[in-house]
């Protein structure tokens, strides 16, 4: 079986013995052009894996920063079709950085699962994270996605106990995303000791890489996570940076890209020094 971009990237991180940086931005935030510019420049700024948010009107598991980011994108006419187009454009210049689409099920369901999987694969998407599809609903998208050759990355949380973990891990591939707090994105952060223990627990159940997210905002926090996990995920802090350059009428300043990339560079430096 050929390896996927995600598998290759985590293997490379392992041989470089450093933790990775997974960056989340919302597709089309603040608008299509700036979002594409930002997306293209994330790898050189130090993003190892890119999570690209599919905007949704009702992001129930997300905090205010990502909600606002979704709404900025939607207000500027973002759709799932354009999100896939963004990935197609990105892939013209980058064939190695893994891209994972992250979001909620309804826009995909509305697009039609078979058509979506076909178009996502063709665009160069590597994996999916769909927040409101637990293992109990695997037939909806997870199984078809695996058949289509896409990784389906599952969230494990502090409420996922040892008894349930095998269920959660059963059809997970690529990596496991550990949600370090019971809560929504971009709010509080977990204690390092708790994260370390949780990653250890996950590692007893799976050989997959473990990325940890929720509440990581600074380079130091990212470094602390990268010490104990395979990667740190940062999202709310990045989209907040973008949001800071959007005025009340929704007009974005091009500075949004530079400023966000500056934060990515800091975070990347953080994960790179973590295990030195």
């Amino acid at each position, binding site marked *: 079986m050929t390896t996927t971009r995600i598998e290759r990237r985590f293997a490379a991180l392992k041989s470089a013995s450093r933790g990775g940086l997974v960056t989340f931005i919302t597709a089309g935030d603040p608008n299509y052009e700036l979002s594409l510019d930002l997306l293209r420049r994330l790898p050189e700024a130090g993003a190892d894996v890119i999570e690209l948010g599919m*905007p*949704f*009107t*009702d*992001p*129930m*598991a997300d*905090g*205010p920063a990502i*909600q606002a980011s979704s709404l900025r994108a*939607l207000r500027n006419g973002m*759709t*799932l*079709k354009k999100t896939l187009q963004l990935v197609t454009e990105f892939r013209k210049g980058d064939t190695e950085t893994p891209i994972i689409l992250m979001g*909620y*099920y*309804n*826009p*995909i*369901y*509305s*697009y039609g699962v078979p058509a979506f999987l076909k178009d996502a694969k063709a665009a160069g998407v590597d994996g999916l994270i769909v*927040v*409101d*599809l*637990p*293992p*109990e*609903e695997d037939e909806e998208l997870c199984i078809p996605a695996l058949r289509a050759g896409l990784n389906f990355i*599952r*969230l*494990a*949380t*502090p*409420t*996922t*106990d040892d008894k*349930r973990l095998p269920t*959660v891990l059963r059809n997970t591939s690529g990596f496991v995303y550990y*949600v370090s707090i*019971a*809560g*929504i994105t971009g*709010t509080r952060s977990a204690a390092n000791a708790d994260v370390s223990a949780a990653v250890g627990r996950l590692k007893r159940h799976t050989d997959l890489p473990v990325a940890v997210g929720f509440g990581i905002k600074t380079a130091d926090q990212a470094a602390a996570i990268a010490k104990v996990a395979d990667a740190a995920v940062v999202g709310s802090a990045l989209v907040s940076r973008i949001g800071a350059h959007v005025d009340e009428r929704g007009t974005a300043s091009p500075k949004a890209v530079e400023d966000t990339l500056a934060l990515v560079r800091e975070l990347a430096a953080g994960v790179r020094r973590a295990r030195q």
Partner: protein
Amino acid sequence: MIALTASAPAPRNTYRNGPDEFGRFGMFGGRFVAETLMPLILEVEKAYKAAKADPKFAEEMEYYRKHYIGRPSPLYFAPRLTEHFGGAKIYLKRDELNHTGSHKINNCMGQILLAKRMGKTRIIAETGAGQHGVATATVCALFNLPCTVYMGETDIARQQPNVFRMKLLGAEVVPVKSGTRTLKDAMNEALRDWVTNVESTFYIIGTVAGPHPYPTLVRDFQSIIGEEVRWQMAEAEGRLPDTLVACIGGGSNAMGLFHPFLDDQSVEVYGVEAGGDGVETGRHAASLTGGRPGVLHGNRTYLLQNEDGQINDAHSISAGLDYPGIGPEHAWLHDMKRVKYVSATDKEALEAFQLLSKLEGIIPALEPSHALAYVSKIAPTLPKDHLIVMNLCGRGDKDIFAVAQHLGVKL
């Protein structure tokens, strides 16, 4: 030759055995929630199964229904209304006479008893019109549990009396500023709270929607409405009613009335959605008439949404019906064509609101005013021995300020 594909589904042996083990009513329902909530959802399902099998739970429910809620609620023959329309005999199921003024308490009582059995120490709820928030705050006061109610800012402005009521009852009312600032956004915010406080908190969902097992347990707690109507109508007329009518937002009062009658093929059943400015205008809350299947708030059901799967705003004069979705069992009954789903506009509901006040001395809530608006269309066309039961699921005290404003009256 018999056609293998029929345009209308064949009648079933029963419409009352859903959902399946996956929480599905046909393709609708399910458990579309974040992993953080999933273990708890499974725990709620287990606890509810155990409660249902425990005669003590039934006894407790019976006690509070009788002594606290004030059940059974009367099935009232409305003589002047009947005379006014000049057709079918109209009966009103008086669930507006329950403690707290609506059917919502039937469900809240069941869920808080369940929460207590599960050892939960904090209650959250979402509310639109405030009726569910008031009912939740009430049972929380009764059982001494802290209560947080999420309510959209738009709804807070149009349902001031209920906001004050909830505060009197000791609840914290959190204004929701996201999205359209109505019921849908209140539900998003309640889910965010739940994810954050999952260990301590029980979420009392107000309608027959949300992830499995909520649509089922809310239906079961509300079915007391229809069960009472069965024996009350037998006492009054010696037979089953011919037609049932109820308004539908999420659909809990309607499901409570309909469910015990679904297998009685002679009983015609109408659910009345909120037509807002008219379904053809796009400004409405009629998910079945104007929406298509999608996934939101833990279940697959009919939703108001655009071609990209983004949720559209609902529009209704009634805060309680102002929701872009509907309970999954209704979605299924719609596809099975067992229940007919229709709509009434804001204007029609306002007329019905005034009519019932003048003719029967009963000020209805704006929600059941939609049901009455539909009754006013069919009753004149039906024979005098035709029996209609309309669920008068809430009283209108909470709405008088909003109605006065719509009628251009300064209070």
